[in-house]
């Protein structure tokens, strides 16, 4: 490919200067390596942002999930939609639906709350009044009303959520959890 001009003297790649040549080579590799590595490292670190950066924890606070008077006294589950502000990268969406949950009023006045996402693979779990159970239409996971699993399809019981009653209002800490694992791990 190279076609040196006819006037150029012959190339002298070897000879008594060989040790110096080795040193120059080393320097060339070093300088070139650093120059190349810096932008690659910066770009890679930036690309790794999703695992490098601590984000503000979403949904950390308690959300209002209605009034205790909305719940039937016999403990029948009621599905409730939760709204909150959502931050998606730079945008803040005000008062958006972030998910739905089941609420049950217990005889002692306590409120049980469950995330309605199936612990198996994340479909939404239905309440079946006839069978008095929660049932997932995707792979037939079934749960008792206290959230305990009725078959071995789901890896764990339904995910309960922290809930408290203040002046007749129900407040829930909404969280989503890793599906398909034995342990309940918030995500």
């Amino acid at each position, binding site marked *: *490919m*190279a*076609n*040196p*001009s006819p*006037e*150029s*003297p*012959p*190339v*002298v*790649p070897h000879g008594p200067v060989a040790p110096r*040549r080795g040193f*120059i*080579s080393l*320097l*060339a590799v070093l*300088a*070139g390596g*650093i*120059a*190349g590595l*810096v*932008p*690659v490292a*910066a*770009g890679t*670190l*930036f*690309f*790794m*942002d999703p695992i*490098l*950066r601590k984000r503000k924890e979403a949904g950390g606070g308690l959300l209002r999930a209605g009034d205790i008077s909305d719940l039937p006294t016999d403990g029948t589950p009621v599905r409730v939609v939760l709204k909150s*502000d959502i*931050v998606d*990268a*730079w*945008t*803040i*969406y*005000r008062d958006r639906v972030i998910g739905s949950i089941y609420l049950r009023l217990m005889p002692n006045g306590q409120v049980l709350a469950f995330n309605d996402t199936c612990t198996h693979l994340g479909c939404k779990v239905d309440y079946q009044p006839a069978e008095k159970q929660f049932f997932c239409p995707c792979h037939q996971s079934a749960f008792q009303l206290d959230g305990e699993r009725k078959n071995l399809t789901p890896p764990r019981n339904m995910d309960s959520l922290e809930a408290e009653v203040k002046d007749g209002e129900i407040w829930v800490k909404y969280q989503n959890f890793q599906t398909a694992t034995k342990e309940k791990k918030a995500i």
Partner: protein
Amino acid sequence: MKALLNWLDHRTGYKLLVHEALNEPIPGGARWRYITGSMLTFTFIVQIITGFALWTAYSPSTQTAWESVYYIQHQMSYGWLVRGIHHFAAQAMMILLGLHFLQIVWDGAYRAPREVNFWLGLVLMQIVIGLSLTGYLLPWDQKGYYATKVATNIAGSTPFIGQQVQQIAQGGSAYGHHTLTRFFALHAGLLPALLTVFLALHVYVFRRHGITVPHSAQGKPADTFWPKQVLYDAAGCLVTLALVLYFTLTRSAELSAPADAGEDFPARPEWYFLFLFRFLEFPAISKMGVAFGAIYVPTALMIIVVLMPLIGKSQWGHYFNRLFLVAVLAAVAVLTGMTIIEDNHNESHQAKLAFAERDAHRIVVLAARDGIPQNGARELLVNDPLTQGPRLFARHCSSCHRFDGHDGTLQKIMKTVEENGVKKLIPEPATAADLKDFGNREWITRVLTDYDATFKPLENAGEKGQAILTGEMSSWCKDNQKALTDPANAESLKALVEFLTSQGGRSDLGAFDEKLVADGKEIFKGGTLKSGTLSSSCVDCHAMKVAGERTSLSEGAGAGYPTLTGYAGRDWLKAFLRNPAHPDFYGDKNTMMVFDDKRLSEKELDLLVNWMTGDYYLPPNAHHTK
């Protein structure tokens, strides 16, 4: 290992490729002046790497472009670093392009048989300029927006096809989503692809003819590319990178406020186009029309550059080319220097820049507060008293008042006068008080102890202004000045001021001293100072209902004696601006403009008053500075 490499070589022939790449002969030996080409290639690779990284987080639309760049710069891990490298490497590329070009022309490397490669280089130069122009707009900030508007308007001035060219570039007759999607597709897609293709051709043809050896090196022993020239090249790349990092760390890539078609910006092109900007400013050039200065002249110069290989066939032609290039570069340097010096001496331009910088800082504070609304970041500025207040002040108040000597937006108000037949600009005197300190402790102290100095500008307001300066409050102040400024009464004055300041319920004045407020109330009521008494007490003229109390302290003397209930607070100021001629304020004696809702909407009034009373968001640990 060796066996594996031999196997790979047998299947791919890579050793020959490496050998060809590294053992290219360098007749006359390795030299520093040959490094610019490699440095350009290096910066291009840096741009591809950092550009790809930025691409993963950039969102090209008018409501998300600035927002995503803000997010890259201020929120994402190492976003400032990647964007900084991309920003400054782009500028390094322009400098290297100039150096490379200079070296080629100076050494006559364009002459036969290298003419085609010279032209390939010119194509590469155009592509790099295209990348720079398209990239400048992508953050969709004020700076890029207005600078690029100039560029597309220049394209629009092209004879015959200008309008069509402009519309195609913009994606419509105005700037919008499609301007960004098109510029982005060009910047990240077509132009880098073309650059890669032409760079490959450029290197291929370069390798075919080899390096052009300058006279001084002819006859000296030859080298191969590896390792000495590679070391020189690598060192050059390392220095480039070091400079890019230095600027990233010390200056960081700029991001001005989000683009706003309704908001003025002191736009200048990037520094490497300043010469063209200045060239177009010459009256003789602007008289000829935009197309002349921005299209015909550059095209004519470019034609000469394209013809350089033909002109340079003779030795005299080569000298002409050198001279031409040096002359053009000198002109560019002079014009660039002129712009920088003129801008530095242009007070109004500097004030505009400083004010624009305030917006740039403010929007980052607002965006970091709890995110950017769906309609985009501009909405945050539009609804922010600290951003809009000064603008409203400039529009509605600054024809009479000043704010710390300027119009609210840091601009001095000037007027043209003719002196001995020469027109010159002098400051326009105010005709009403400077309101920077309005309602704070200094303000009230000054009004009480030196009324005439506070309202001195009223001297310029004609008879009605004079009437105020010779009015009752002015005489009261003169009568009591001695008592109020008596060191023995320092505490009494402080108490009276504290009481009056506390009435507005303002949050920007710090905490109030309850004891002083209580003492001040007594002085306000009875006029008794620590040493002596006031000629008449405040309640003799002014109405006052202390915040939180059921009954009024005083009803006042009626119209023309402004009420001090909630003085200088939000509600007081709103009511006052809406109708200063109301009996609660100046009554018949009013000389101030009435700001009814035709002149100032409710929203504007809120923004203005909230700014003046310090009622706007500040990040934790920040202090009020208007």
